[in-house]
């Protein structure tokens, strides 16, 4: 393995982990409500920007980070309450427009609360690159990978072992049946937005020290996260993680070896190519409707 390849791989994994967190957010909301939340990218922005403001105000990371996550989660809950819930039963297109409207609204709001500039966030633990097999990795990248891994493990414990997690899973499989066995489906929906928003915010805080952040970082990240979720197969947790990592690595590799001008297009070329052959993504549910 050449050092260059190793370098691209490490970078790709870091980017991919961020996409994976976003894709998980898409999948959690999709499972609970069958809504694709196009405002998912704005949670990333809110998390990052809030962390920037809070640390600038002198708060230590240990306080600033949870507060920033909470802020995004609150916005997520509000989104569910005031935009998605009132539109229950609307068509797919209508819901897409509502969540895109919400993302435009949030971006406009962020422009007022903050500004249009790029903001740096101090890395959690220094910025001296660490050498690995001829390549280097930033300590912040290790944070990204480590936290993502921890979140994936925590989520699989949550959905596999806890009552609330199982209730959320049950709702995604069959809403009516879940209601019948006494699950508070409204609550599940509400929580799924909060949880997804928190995941987005974490991604935003993790990546801000590497890429800087601004009021509009959410646009492209949101679309890539959606692409990752679709690539893996909507609603599949494993699919979201694999989809994110595959997109991140493929994007970095092709930007490195082929053309960096088309870096942002690669994700969409891959997704089109995969969907042409696998119309439900890599791990999506197969088989059409029954008649």
């Amino acid at each position, binding site marked *: 393995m050449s050092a260059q390849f190793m370098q691209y791989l490490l970078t790709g994994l870091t980017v991919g982990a961020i996409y994976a967190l976003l894709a998980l957010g898409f999948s959690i909301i999709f499972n609970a409500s069958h809504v694709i939340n196009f405002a998912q990218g704005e949670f990333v922005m809110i998390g990052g920007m809030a962390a920037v403001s809070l640390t600038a105000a002198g708060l230590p990371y240990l306080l600033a980070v949870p507060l920033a996550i909470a802020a995004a989660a609150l916005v997520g809950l509000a989104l569910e309450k005031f935009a998605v819930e009132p539109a229950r039963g609307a068509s797919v297109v209508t819901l897409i427009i509502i969540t895109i*409207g919400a*993302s435009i*609204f949030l971006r406009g709001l962020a422009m007022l609360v903050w500004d249009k500039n790029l903001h740096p966030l101090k890395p959690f633990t220094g910025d001296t690159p660490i050498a690995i097999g001829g390549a280097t990795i930033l300590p912040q990248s290790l944070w990204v990978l480590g936290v993502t891994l921890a979140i994936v493990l925590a989520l699989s414990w949550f959905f596999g072992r806890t009552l609330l997690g199982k209730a959320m899973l049950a709702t995604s499989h069959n809403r009516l049946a879940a209601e019948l066995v006494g699950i508070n489906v409204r609550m599940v929906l509400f929580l799924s937005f909060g949880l997804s928003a928190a995941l987005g915010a974490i991604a935003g805080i993790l990546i801000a020290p590497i890429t800087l952040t601004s009021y509009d970082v959410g646009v492209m990240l949101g679309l890539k996260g959606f692409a990752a979720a679709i690539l893996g197969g909507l609603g599949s947790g494993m699919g979201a993680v694999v989809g994110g990592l595959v997109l991140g690595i493929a994007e970095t590799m092709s930007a490195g070896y082929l053309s960096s001008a088309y870096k942002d297009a690669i994700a969409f070329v891959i997704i089109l190519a995969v*969907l042409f052959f696998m119309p439900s993504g890599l791990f999506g549910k197969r088989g059409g409707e029954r008649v």
Partner: protein
Amino acid sequence: MLQRLASPRTGGLLALAAAIVLLPFLLSNSYFYDIAILVGLNAIVCVGLNLLIGYAGQISLGHAGFFGLGAYGSAILASRYGWPPLAAMLTTTLAVAALAFLVGRPILRLKGHYLAMATLGLGIIIFMVITTEDKFTGGPDGLSVVPFSIGEYTLRGERLWYWIVGALLLFAVWLALNLIESPAGRALRALHSSEVGAEVVGIDAARQKVMVFVISAVFASVAGSLAAHYSGFVTPGKVAFFHSIELVTMVVFGGMASTFGAVVGAAVLTTLPQLLTVFKDYEMMVFGAVMMGTMIFLPRGVVPSLGRLLELRRQGAASRSDPRT
């Protein structure tokens, strides 16, 4: 005869024609003409897009891509290579139709959110190509475009363009109504409701979907070509993802499966940003809020909701709202 005039089809066409003829009395300066022309061009795209989304039930979040290909195709052929604008436009239209035909079959096999993703991806790829290949397109800076001319005669001035775009819009609406009220149009609405139900009476759903996808792409492309020549300039902004969303919002806002609704949606949402400039810094927020609000409170769109209201008022009238209006 009178009955015929009052029918949604003839009556609607007449009403639209009257609106186009009477509007200039309200347009006091060329700025207003400019907006009216933009409305007309967007309306042409929306009438086509509505055939795809409203009637056939297939989402596209990438139609700005076809609009952009039309605009840039005309711009590059006419301005860089000196083709006669009409030839440039026709060639571009054919090329866009061919592209839509080629990608249409694999893309339209997808359903729901997967289809949304694929069309979104297609639009973004087109956008990236246009911004990156700056040798041809001028990149993010855009490209200036020669005025539209036929032979020696050059089309200039907002007033002339107003009448051209108005006539074309009327023509586009007429074509759309013709399609909807034909066996092919019924087939589209049928497969929207039940694809398997449509297939078993002999409708090749895949083919019908590709056909309407191509038609909607052609509408968008032609509007793009005209927009490029009219404004004398093309920039990637009109190709971006956000413009695709604007177009879809216009269709849904006006009312899905309502051709006149698509025109109304285009009119309202094209003028809205002009009005919103009074909000200055709040413009973006207000626009987002309007998008959310109308979809939440009028999920069926303005025209069908109004139609329903009128219907209720008129009571006694035979049956329910005619889906073809």
